[in-house]
């Protein structure tokens, strides 16, 4: 076999144009006029490493760095409105968010480290690219042939697959917003539209978002009824900080009366597949039941059966499934018996 290969390994940003519009409207205008060659840069904490690694090669960056986010507020119809440009530090520290939807503050707090959170935005977190060990490196002299995701013709972890990418979507805030039934406000040249966050993720590792090339997320709305639900979020990681999740579980439940009857449920699982997954069937099973430890265990098993885990970052499918079950069970138990201290760490 003969192969000719050109390699280098020094992490340089490729050349690109750079624009800093003064409003979101101007930003989508620029996206539109670029005809798909431009991409938004919010905090850049996902984008810049990906550009250095050569997984994304935009001709132009439309930087939102000159825009300041609106403060989070309650709309006339009671929804909590968050600006997509809010930084994760803002979200994690906001008294209003902590009061209304503490799990979102919690999830934001568990992203990366403090420096990352100071720059990273909520919109960017929801729109971050999928991840895979083979993808997230510079390809200087390893895995130099471009894989499907990088525009090439192979897949390293699944060499037999054709044009399928099983890279994993690892946002921490996405499962929480799914559990909260959030609406995304999508802005384009033709104005704003609302999209249910459930419909935002495609499940295709090659193109994980249902977002046009001239669209951006402008805001996120959390409906009033979700603000009254009990919520829980857990991010399972090997070391408890500065890392992506092995598995994350976000749950919102409406629990009524002394019998703890479950009136409504949303259960979402993150970081185990090409998009965040929702356990619709298990949700159905729990609604109408009086909650107790046995139900928690049973539902957890059902959730683990329902959401399909892809092995990723060295964790096997079986282990991820087990983690989904354990963390769902523990979350539910903590929600049913809230007197016991609520825990969102992965270990004592």
């Amino acid at each position, binding site marked *: 076999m003969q192969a*000719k290969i050109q390699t280098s390994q020094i992490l340089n940003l490729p050349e690109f144009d750079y624009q800093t519009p003064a409003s979101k409207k101007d930003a989508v205008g620029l996206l539109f006029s670029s005809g798909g060659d431009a991409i938004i840069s919010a905090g850049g904490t996902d984008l810049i490493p990906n550009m250095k690694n050569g997984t994304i090669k935009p001709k132009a960056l439309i930087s939102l760095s000159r825009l300041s986010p609106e403060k989070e507020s309650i709309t006339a119809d009671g929804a909590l409105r968050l600006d997509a440009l809010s930084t994760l530090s803002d979200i994690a520290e906001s008294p209003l968010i902590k009061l209304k939807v503490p799990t979102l503050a919690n999830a934001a707090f568990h992203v990366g480290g403090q420096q990352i959170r100071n720059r990273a935005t909520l919109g960017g977190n929801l729109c971050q690219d999928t991840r895979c060990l083979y993808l997230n490196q510079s390809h200087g002299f390893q895995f130099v042939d471009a894989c499907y995701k990088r525009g090439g013709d192979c897949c390293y972890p699944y060499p037999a697959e054709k044009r399928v990418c099983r890279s994993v979507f690892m946002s921490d805030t996405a499962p929480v917003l799914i559990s909260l039934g959030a609406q995304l406000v999508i802005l384009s040249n033709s104005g704003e539209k609302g999209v249910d966050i459930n419909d935002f993720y495609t499940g295709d590792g090659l193109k994980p978002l249902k977002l046009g090339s001239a669209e951006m997320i402008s805001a996120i709305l959390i409906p009033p009824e979700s603000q009254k639900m009990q919520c829980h979020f857990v991010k399972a990681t090997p070391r408890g900080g500065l890392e992506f999740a092995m598995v994350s579980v976000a749950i919102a439940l409406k629990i009524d009366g002394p019998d703890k009857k479950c009136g409504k449920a949303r259960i979402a699982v993150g970081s185990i597949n090409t998009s965040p997954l929702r356990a619709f069937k298990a949700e159905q099973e729990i609604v109408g039941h009086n909650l107790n430890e046995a139900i928690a265990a049973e539902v957890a098993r059902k959730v683990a059966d329902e959401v399909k885990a892809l092995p990723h970052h060295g964790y096997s499918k079986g282990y991820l499934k087990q983690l989904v079950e354990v963390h769902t069970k523990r979350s539910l138990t903590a929600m049913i018996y809230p007197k016991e201290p609520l825990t969102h760490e992965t270990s004592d």
Partner: protein
Amino acid sequence: MGELKLVGKSLLRIDGPDKTTGKAKYTADRKLPGMLVGGILRSPHPHAKILNINTEKAEKLLGVKAIISGSDTRGVKHGFVETPRYPPDQNILADDVVRHVGEEIVAVAATNYKVLNDALNLIEVTYEVLPAVFDVAEAMHPDCKVQIHPNHPKVKDDFCNIAGKTETQWGDIEEGFKQADLICVDRFESHLRTHGYLEPQTAIADYGGDGTLHMWISSMGHFVKRKKLASTLGMPEGSIQIHKAYVGGAFGGKIDLFSHEYCAAALSIKTGRPVKFVATREEIFTAYRHGQPLISEIKTGVKKDGTIVAQQLRMINNAGAYKGSGVVVIFLAWGFVMLPYRVKNFKYEGYSIFTNNPPRAPLRGHGAPQVRFALESHMDIIAEKLKMDPIALRLKNARIPGEELPNGDNVHNCGLQACIQKAVSKTDFSKRRHCFPNTEKISAHRPIKHGIGLGVSSYFGGSLIYPNSSSAIVKMNDDGSVDLLTGAIELGQGSETVLCQIVGEELQLELEDIRIISSDTATTPQDIGAWISGMTYVTGNAVREAAGGVREKILQVAAEQLNERVENLKLENKSVLVAADPAQRISYRDVFNASIANSRGDTIIGKGHWRTMRDEPFHPSLATTKGRWSENYAFSVQVAEVAVDTETGEIKLLKATTVHDCGFPINPQLVKGQIDGQVSLALGHAFMEDVMMKNGYTLNPTWLDYRMPLIHNVADSKEVDVITESYQVGRSFRTKEVGEGLVSAILAAIANAIYDATGLRMYTTPFSPEKVLKGLKLLDENKGLR
């Protein structure tokens, strides 16, 4: 002797303010006028023949100043070991074959990184890809079709890809096993970890007009670097000056000569301009060195009373594509086995095997963690089979003071028995073992089990290896302050502070009165470097002698001036005074002037040298272990308390207790720093650090995916020093090793604690949640619980 003034005190580090305020200069911080940047083109294949290298297009690029490949070097090879048995085997830049991913092929110097990157992309290399082997069992199998290098000519075993072998025995192994009441056989395996130094690999070379090659290198010992640069470049040692720069951690990973260091020099010579190389973190993870994965196969025969009567071991090391330190670790593994316990009949074989992985380097402990994890787990297994207390088993076999080791070394004031006893009492070990599982902290949805375990280790302190000796100079200034000139390198361990404390003690000076000039090959004397675990002992004694020389001169001159006998004088506050009549005194300043006036112009300079085992010609044989190894062994016992989440497999090290015989702590706080650092290193080893490789490629070459412990993962770490030595002004001292050995027993202790908590015996590292969970499930199934 009177009370000590500086030695034995936890004085603040003298490099502390510079480092905490960001003033400390590291190599990468340095910018020289006209400096070029360098980069290396590396192999994308684990094993391939190079058919052609075409640099034409790159050479034409504006801003490219020089390009070199293998044919531009002198072809002199280098290696971690360079002995007749193990001659150097690594090329600076590949000749016709590359044997691991990331192997260096071409080096470029350019005016900036953009040009450099473009140039590297324009170089065309044509390869013929060869079959490769990565797994050590496959590589050594007699039928292995891949030959990475010819077998070692002196090793006759029927295996393939043998890089080296260490073989030794004593007593009568067969007879020993015949006497045994119980024979226990186990196999342990440890995984691939890396050093995780924060400062990247970096070098600057400036071949100026003065005929000297000036270099700044992130290294662990400038003199050994200079030696290897001299031999590969074909320059006399004296024409190379490696300057001082702070080093941001090394942990064993910066000893070897690296291609980028040679290339910086060669490219600077070629262009006449300074050249700087800074490796990317990905290069470090994929193409530089990692630690040594080891397989330990152990068979031990014991009497009913616990006496070990025979022990047979086979250790196998996956060396990577070149010998690296693989042929050393199989020697050291023998040493780490035989140090703590007496074994009358013993047989050892260690194999180092070539594979198409990057070559390996020492990693703090250099085999000891792997070996002690295996041996101490094995000891607990034996104790259980004998129905014997594991402490009693260890005490029965542990070395006692004055014992001679099989290689002729002596353990001198060995504190091992005391360490075991203190560790047990300090942690209430015997009472707490076995009683966790069903008592503490069990709640329905948090089934956490607690356990406690113990391990024993021992480590050498300094051995004979180039340059075999440290020298030091202390010279006095007019005002009575002194300058210490030492080759010792400060890489975070605190050497500069410790050495100044010694000078201060010998001369009764404050630290402010001592300036240290260190690790510059032109202005400081030879030094063994910070990689043979002997700096405080070897360099420390050299420094003590140098300061002692100054003290003697001061006393002599003062005696003449005060008309007193030397024995009646004492040093205090930069003066010499008559002990019985303190009013009679003379300041160091006046002594200095008097010395120049009356001692033929002597400006009061002291020099000292120290060589460990000064009557031994060489280091011991790597092949047979014959010859002395060290004159200075430290012993330690560590206890781990863990919590195991039996539903997720996650384990937390709650508390680590270290009881160690460190001889005498010159600076107790620095000793504590070493202990805490090693405990957290072991914690990473145990639970999270894992270089994931597939077919010679590294899957997680980033800080995100190679997980090292964060501050909140670090365990509560307590220690007890067992002091077996003392420090006296004017006398040689015997400090013992504290910088490497304490990664080891704690790893074993964690494994034993997991067993105590859950009944799960760990035979391989890391103790990852997934592995633990799998093990626990299997245990339950076997118990018929599921």
